[in-house]
């Protein structure tokens, strides 16, 4: 399924996020004044309107908030089934990522599962995929 993944166009707002996995760490924008996390990345804090925002490393773990098992081949090369999940990011309250849960049977995923990031590099992008822990 890797060959069919559409990749993000890197721009000044998102480049830090999509290249964060180069050193194996997951980052989100954080307000340096009130410590709120901002995602998707914006140049201003929604909470205190501070413009002092910068990428911050998070632990790279999370919890499956919800998920689906996708059975439909949306492109000819797509391998199905696979899991699409929304992961609540540890250390960044209120932030979720849509991602894939990999390296386990599709029926082994459930809401509440603990997961950790596993980056997949494609060209100049490091996609944060997740796998189950424990």
């Amino acid at each position: 399924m890797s060959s069919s993944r559409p990749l993000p166009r890197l721009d000044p707002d998102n480049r830090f996020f999509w290249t964060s996995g180069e050193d194996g760490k997951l980052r989100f924008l954080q307000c340096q004044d009130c410590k709120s996390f901002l995602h998707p990345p914006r140049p201003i804090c929604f909470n205190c309107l501070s413009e002092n925002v910068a990428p911050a490393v998070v632990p790279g773990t999370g919890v499956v908030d919800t998920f689906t098992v996708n059975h439909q081949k949306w492109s000819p090369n797509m391998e199905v089934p696979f899991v699409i999940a929304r992961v609540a990011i540890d250390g960044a309250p209120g932030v979720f990522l849509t991602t894939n849960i990999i390296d386990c049977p599709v029926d082994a995923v459930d809401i509440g599962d603990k997961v950790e990031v596993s980056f997949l590099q494609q060209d100049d992008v490091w996609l944060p995929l997740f796998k189950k822990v424990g």
Partner: protein
Amino acid sequence: MAAEAYITGIGQSQVGQKLTRHPLLLTMDAAREALADAGLTLADIDGISTYPGKMSGYLGFSPVGTEDLIDALHLKVRWYNGGMETSAQLGAIATAAAAVKAGLARHVLCFRTVYEAAAMARPQDYPMNRAPRVDGGTQWTAPFNATSAVTWVAQYAMRHVKKYGLKREQLAQISLTDRKNALLNPRALVREPLTLEQYMEARLIAEPMCLFDCDRFSDASTVIIVSAGDALGDVKATPIRIAAAAYRSERHSWDQTEFMASYPTGAELWKNTDYKPKDVDTVQLYDGFAFLTLTWLEGLGFCGVGEGGKFIEGGHRIALDGELPLNTFGGQIGAGRLHGFGFAHESVVQLRGQGGERQIKGDPKVAVAASGGGPLASALLLARD
């Protein structure tokens, strides 16, 4: 009433797949029917509103914009509006209502034209221009092969399965009801019965959603004419008042909110009117994917959050002869993907008593039409005075 807005005319083209009639002409077919219905002519139209406007990169999704109609017909409009950045399809009608109330126009022609089946069949004529890379909101889903909205909706549905015990047999009642009602709608795209057994055996698309939970691409145009209260003297049809509208937005991300916008928008609608859910005679609720309808039932307060599955269980309550008839024209799952405007069209049909074989019993006076999913939602409360 000067400060009111009314739907005074409705029209629809043929609804089909792989049509060859030009999409502007389909729009005109719907416009002619709506004008004749209202007793108006094009010369009376001084406003145009649409959703989402012409999309050059994805012509099947929206092949006709306000500029096409205005320019092709040399319309002299005082006000026009069209764009993706309003909250879902019926937002085009809600915005037109605000415009006529503000005196910016007397009669606004609102339209939604879709050509997705034709564009898929003839990509050389209606290409989908994909950029080499994705950006905007799409960058947060597409790299994970969550390209179709069904995969986003399915995750909300899965939460209902896990948290509230929603069963596929319950969710099935949306498409079973749609398909049953479509049998009584001469214009419906899908006019074959569907059984619970067929539904339960259907191919899964994105769990828990199956093939029959999804609407089907169609080629069609729907027109709704919105008129100012002080312009009703021009009109011959029974006017249907837009008693309230809502299109509330919170986070504009599919994956950063616990509840889709159908919940805050549903609650907002009742803040804008003295009517209550118990006053509603029929609901026409977006079913691009069946689970979205369930979220509207919950969001509008017809049942509590998480109670949607039990509310529709067995299908009796939402049937044509039930206490809250739903999607009486077949919804998008039965009647075709008219993309939002079909729900307003059918509300007017029912409130005027023009439903023929599918007309609901009694003397319906109040309907809710709603459109959208995820961060997009708009709702109209329609009343016959």
